[in-house]
């Protein structure tokens, strides 16, 4: 490309305690292009955007705007430089008028002779000017709440365009829009691109990427996988780069396992929930690790939550040990022997201010009710036993959970569920956001758990991960989801990485 990039990042590093979030990341944005930033959960997209918008400062690396090095320290700095961001959730005031929303924070004012008051005529004119730039004709004096989400999204964009924007960052702008609204948004974005704006578009929808983007940068595991012209990167190749090439050197466990199967423990028949998951059949057996693969939004987590009763199913039922059951709450599923380690460790797992011991004990105690399951000494011994067995790095069992690193918190949560001695263990992204060594540790633990002493003693494990190599490495059987329904199931020995990728990447019907 002959033009110089308007924004360029190179060698960006960013780490948090126990986590390497970004490692040698580079990104180039040219004027007049839509650039898609793709990557799975935890690939580092949001961290990168936070670096760009000044929310985080990189540990190393350079950011240049028009060839000048910049170091935004606050979001205001980035905004003043012309790097504007529209976030997933619309951040506007629905009860104020469209014009007020567009100009809020930087109202045109009358001169001091006029009292320095807000010049409402100018506010309206300004709002109309920006909206016409986007070819959007709406009443700027009407309250924003009168308009649909897609129009509100466009008003949010208009707001960022008012002050000479050089770069527009859109973080998952379409996740709450329907198809028609997405098309309208895209028309506006193409128009802005043609006016010379550089647009960075973050999404996990493949169809939308190909409909809009000129070039694609793929991130994986906090690193830049590569930068490609959209026309030259096939869907299959893109997904391959997002989920990681299947490891050639490592023999997958699918072949190495003995072929005998345990007795079925948990069976789901037509389990579904409107808007979350189409009816799904699933069977988990003793001593078996079943992998659940698919892209973000494919229904993986939704399936896990239905199996665990965290959400209630409106179709189908589950069978536990051959008995038909319907969960009304996680409590019932836990009582029946199911454990669920959520992907959202911070919000759905860890009790950060309580000790590691209390965190480990919680599910076991909750199942028992108010009567203490064991004496304080026994609690201490149990916690210390798991700390040792899982190699949790903590000064003591009394340490507040919040002082542990992410990987060690994850292990403590695993310990919480192991302590309940479940028949079925559901692990949703157990390796997300933890460093490579902790990942390997954890996967070893998972494998050891399922095997147990003999096939019928081991537990059934449902393993969900965005990392295809991880799933392949761990699973005896693989279920692929796409568009919230099952798209393929692979038994031991019939696995072919390429066909898995094809199923994951296939165009939605």
């Amino acid at each position: 490309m002959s033009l110089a990039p308007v924004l360029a990042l190179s060698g960006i590093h960013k780490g948090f305690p126990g986590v390497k979030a970004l490692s040698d990341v580079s990104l180039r944005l040219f004027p007049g292009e839509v650039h898609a930033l793709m990557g799975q959960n935890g690939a580092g997209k949001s961290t990168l955007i936070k670096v760009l918008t000044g929310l985080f400062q990189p540990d190393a690396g350079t950011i240049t705007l028009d060839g000048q090095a910049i170091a935004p320290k606050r979001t205001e700095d980035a905004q003043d430089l012309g790097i504007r961001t529209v976030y997933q959730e619309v951040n506007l005031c629905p009860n104020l008028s469209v014009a007020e929303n567009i100009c809020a924070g930087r109202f045109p004012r009358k001169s001091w002779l006029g009292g320095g008051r807000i010049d409402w005529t100018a506010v309206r004119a300004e709002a109309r000017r920006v909206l016409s730039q986007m070819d959007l004709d709406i009443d700027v004096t009407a309250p924003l709440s009168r308009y649909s989400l897609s129009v509100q999204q466009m008003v949010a964009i208009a707001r960022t365009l008012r002050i000479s924007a050089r770069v527009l960052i859109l973080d998952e702008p379409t996740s709450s829009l329907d198809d028609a609204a997405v098309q309208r948004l895209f028309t506006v974005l193409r128009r802005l691109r043609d006016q010379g704006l550089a647009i960075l578009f973050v999404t996990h929808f493949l169809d939308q990427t190909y409909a809009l983007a000129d070039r694609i940068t793929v991130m994986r595991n906090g690193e830049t996988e590569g930068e490609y012209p959209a026309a030259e990167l096939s869907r299959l190749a893109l997904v391959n780069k997002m989920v990681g090439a299947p490891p050639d050197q490592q023999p997958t466990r699918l072949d190495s396992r003995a072929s005998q199967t345990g007795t079925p423990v948990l069976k789901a028949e037509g389990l579904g929930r409107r808007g979350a998951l189409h009816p799904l059949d699933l069977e988990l057996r003793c001593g078996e690790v079943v992998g659940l693969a698919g892209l973000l939004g494919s229904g993986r987590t939704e399936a896990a939550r239905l199996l665990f009763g965290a959400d209630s199913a409106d179709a189908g039922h589950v069978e536990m040990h051959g008995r038909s059951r319907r969960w009304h709450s996680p409590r019932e599923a836990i009582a029946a022997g199911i454990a669920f380690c959520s992907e959202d460790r911070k919000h759905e797992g860890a009790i950060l201010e309580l000790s590691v011991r209390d965190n480990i004990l919680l599910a076991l105690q909750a199942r028992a009710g108010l009567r203490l399951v064991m004496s304080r000494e026994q609690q201490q011994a149990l916690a210390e036993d798991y700390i040792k067995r899982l190699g949790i790095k903590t000064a003591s069992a009394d340490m507040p959970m919040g002082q542990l690193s992410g990987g060690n918190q994850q292990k403590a949560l695993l310990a919480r569920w192991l302590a309940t001695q479940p028949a079925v263990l559901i692990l949703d992204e157990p390796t997300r956001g933890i460093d490579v060594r902790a990942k390997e540790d954890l996967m070893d633990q998972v494998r050891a758990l399922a095997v147990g002493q003999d096939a019928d003693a081991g537990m059934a494990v449902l393993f969900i991960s965005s990392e295809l190599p991880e799933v392949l490495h761990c699973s005896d059987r693989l279920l692929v989801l796409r568009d919230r329904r099952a798209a393929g199931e692979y038994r031991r020995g019939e696995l072919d990485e390429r066909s898995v990728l094809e199923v994951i990447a296939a165009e939605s019907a």
Partner: protein
Amino acid sequence: MKDAALPMPTQRVPATPLWRHPLARPLAALALLLAVAAVFVPGFFHLEIKDSHLYGSLVDILNRAAPLMLAALGMTLVIATRGIDVSVGAVVAIAGTVACVLVGSHGLAIAFAAALGAALLCGLWNGLLVSVLGLQPIIATLILMVAGRGLAQLLTDGQIITVYEPASFFWLGAGHLLGLPVSIFVVALVAGLTALLMSRTALGLFIQTVGINPVAARLAGVRTAAIVFFVYVYCSLGAGLAGLMISSNIKSADANNAGLLLELDAILAVTLGGGQLSGGKFSLAGSLIGALIIQTLTSTIYAMGVPPQVTMVVKAVVVFAVCISQSSFWSRKSA
């Protein structure tokens, strides 16, 4: 081992110095207040035995703080679940009124049981609104705060009901046991039972879990709704007992003024004791100390002869100082 040589940044020595103890600041504040009182109020620490009863400012403070301490215990648990109960004062009025209306005609046992029964109903109502219907705690309990005094006034036709007999009715609020006010024993008993309930069952763990992370609590199988329901019932029962104590002490039911603003003092006591309104970790002892701080302050100001119109301002200044000293602002600075 290779691992042992690696630095572990998450580790910190678990032994905390004495001044870092959560109760250190509330205790220091109380000690400071007592020291000030000793300087300005002659004979503040003087205790004497008259008619085989112990008299003195300190005993008086404990006695007067008793209703507040009962309310603060309940408020501690409510706040630990991220909630708040502003209906405490109204429940005090209801319980006191029910007891005073019934005690003359139906006897002490029925009157007390009915008063606590009324408080229980109030708690069930609050629990229903917050935990089952999912209303915001402050709004849910505001309903009873407003309606409760009205209900109490309906019971008394807007009059102050004075109780003349039985004399046993006055024992709870004004009687003596082993030379000390009965109210002190009641508070000790309630506090002791509550502490046992928290340590000998998993209730304390569940309450903290629900307060810190309700979503994670539910996913771990904790009966979050039941826990939230319980704390409101418990808080109202404590308020009911406080209402009995107050009406027994003043020998009357004053639907308008009994326990007026007690909920705010209770919230303040929890805060002064180190409790966070954002829920989670709680300390029953801290809240009791907080209640004592408030009562010591009030008594001292009166004893110093500060004009009543200035009292509230002085109280506000001291509370401001204590709250500021406990702000996380300082720990951030030193960290």
